[in-house]
């Protein structure tokens, strides 16, 4: 019985993957670029969702890790002449290290220390990028070489897509697996009732650190992918202003929901394209939308789906055999 279920699930996922794999067949370069951005945004937002949505810890870290990933890949390719793949691989321990450092400092006493530490962290990293001289190429940034493997060059948006598809799918699957287990339940318990979590033998401090590290690693890898999607990295893309995108995605999707996250990623990524005409209003709209969601639909799209759908829909944090 269980084998059958597992086989059925696998087939479903393979079909989904095959469909996703066909996207480049119907898009032009620009549309493919947007799709690529959606994948990148999903990965970094997933990291923020784990920390903020599930574990309830407020941190301004998503853009910083995006930057760390991008710069790690870029600098290792340009200065150390590593291949893109090695650079991407390097992102994991580097992000992990930064997350550990920031987490050890920030996860203390008042819940606001993490927010403050991560703001300081984000701005400090930016300072480093801008004033790093020849090492970080300063305020104007630098170009990323094209990833290659065995002579095959990923020199188009369509080709880059397949890297994204593989990496994002694998990492998302791992993350979602982790969330649908005692870990996810522990996160939500910490978010909603920290004392009850501790009374259930959950080591709150360690789990918060775990959530932070997951946010860091996912954000870092997303940054590594982002660097080649965009082709050029500059310090301005990884500051406080970028964080609002990720916040919006997580909040709009609904704190603690993957389905909502998928939908909101698409919406928010494509939004600037729709709102392009009224660019000056962008920030006002984003800020206003966040406030409106908090006021009227605090459970985001997920909450709205639950409320208005004809059938029962609930994302369970269990693994059912």
């Amino acid at each position: 019985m269980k084998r059958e279920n597992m086989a059925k699930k696998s087939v479903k996922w393979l079909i989904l993957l095959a469909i996703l794999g066909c996207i480049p067949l119907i898009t032009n370069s620009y549309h493919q670029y947007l799709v690529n951005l959606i994948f990148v945004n999903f990965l970094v937002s997933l990291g923020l969702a784990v920390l903020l949505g599930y574990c309830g810890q407020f941190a301004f870290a998503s853009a910083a890790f995006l930057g760390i990933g991008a710069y790690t890949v870029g600098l290792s390719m340009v200065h150390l002449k590593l291949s893109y793949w090695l650079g991407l691989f390097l992102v994991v321990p580097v992000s992990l290290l930064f997350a550990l450092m920031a987490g050890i400092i920030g996860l203390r006493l008042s819940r606001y220390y993490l927010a403050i530490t991560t703001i300081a962290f984000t701005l400090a990293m930016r300072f480093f990028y801008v004033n790093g001289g020849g090492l970080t190429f300063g305020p104007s940034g630098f170009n990323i070489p094209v990833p290659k493997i065995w002579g095959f060059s990923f020199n188009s948006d369509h080709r880059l897509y397949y890297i994204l598809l593989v990496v994002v799918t694998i990492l998302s699957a791992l993350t979602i697996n982790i969330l649908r287990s005692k870990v996810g339940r522990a996160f939500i318990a910490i978010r909603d009732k920290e004392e009850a979590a501790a009374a259930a033998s959950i080591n709150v401090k360690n789990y918060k650190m775990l959530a932070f590290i997951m946010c860091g690693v996912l954000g870092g890898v997303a940054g590594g992918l982002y660097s080649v999607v965009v082709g050029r990295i500059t310090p301005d893309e990884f500051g406080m202003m970028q964080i609002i995108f990720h916040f919006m995605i997580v909040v709009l999707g609904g704190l603690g929901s993957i389905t909502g996250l998928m939908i909101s990623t698409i919406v928010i990524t494509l939004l600037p394209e729709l709102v392009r005409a009224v660019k000056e209003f962008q920030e006002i709209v984003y800020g206003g939308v966040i406030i409106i969601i908090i006021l009227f639909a605090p459970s985001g799209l997920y909450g709205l789906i639950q409320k208005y759908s004809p059938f029962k829909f609930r994302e369970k944090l269990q693994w059912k055999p």
Partner: protein
Amino acid sequence: MLFQILISGFVFGSCYSIVSVGMTTLYQATTVLNFSHGECVMLGAFIFYTLQILYGVSYPLAIVLTLMAALLIGTLMERSVFRRIMFAPHVNIVLATNGFLYFYRGLARLIWKSEPRFPASLIDVQPISLWGAVITSQDIAVLISVFILAAFFIWIFLFTETGLKMRAAAQSLRGAALVGINTNKFFSSIWATSLGAGAVAGILLGPIYSVHPEMGESIILRAFAAMTLGGFGNIGGAAIGGILMGIVENVVGYYFWSPLKEIVAYIVIVGVLIFKPTGILGAKKF
């Protein structure tokens, strides 16, 4: 030269203190940490600049009008948003303040565009020279204002009913509610006060800092550093922390390396959290 550095640092530091005390007061009375406070300072500065420079309003009148605007904005924020989400999970409240952060920044960018502005100082008198330091009229204005404000705050805190309520709320929010302090008017007035303090800081900082839509970011960072340094949630700590931040920043900027001034705040935050997380005067935990 050292005296100049110290005076200058004290002046900036006093402004940081006003910002930090404004934030901490709100935090103590309502447990809300207003991440958009830096933008509120920025708005105060812009409104003052607009009144004074663009409409030629006299300095004192501009101050009054700016303060009234700030009180109004604070009350509106509380009434329209924060009153309704008072009992929501903390994450939601923090997100709401962040929403305001971006909303105000976008608003400022839209209305005033992005070039920095410089409001004029109070009196156009010659700067005075004291012990090798040059003290401008703006510096004096800041020092006098801070003194008045401190006196005003202490008076409210210790000798009025509102102050009593604030102290009660700071000691125990639940206890305060039990004795009937949890009135909407109280919360509105706290928000209004916090924004008012922010506006004052904006008015004072304008001429010496320059006014532009992005100034909120660096201001709030310094406020956080000041609050962390002095003891998070501690009003006295916020005041002392602010002044120390101003002085340390100036000292570092002059004696070490000018760009380093920017990261003093980060170093202070990290340093305090590593070595003495409760800060100088001790943090209040919520």
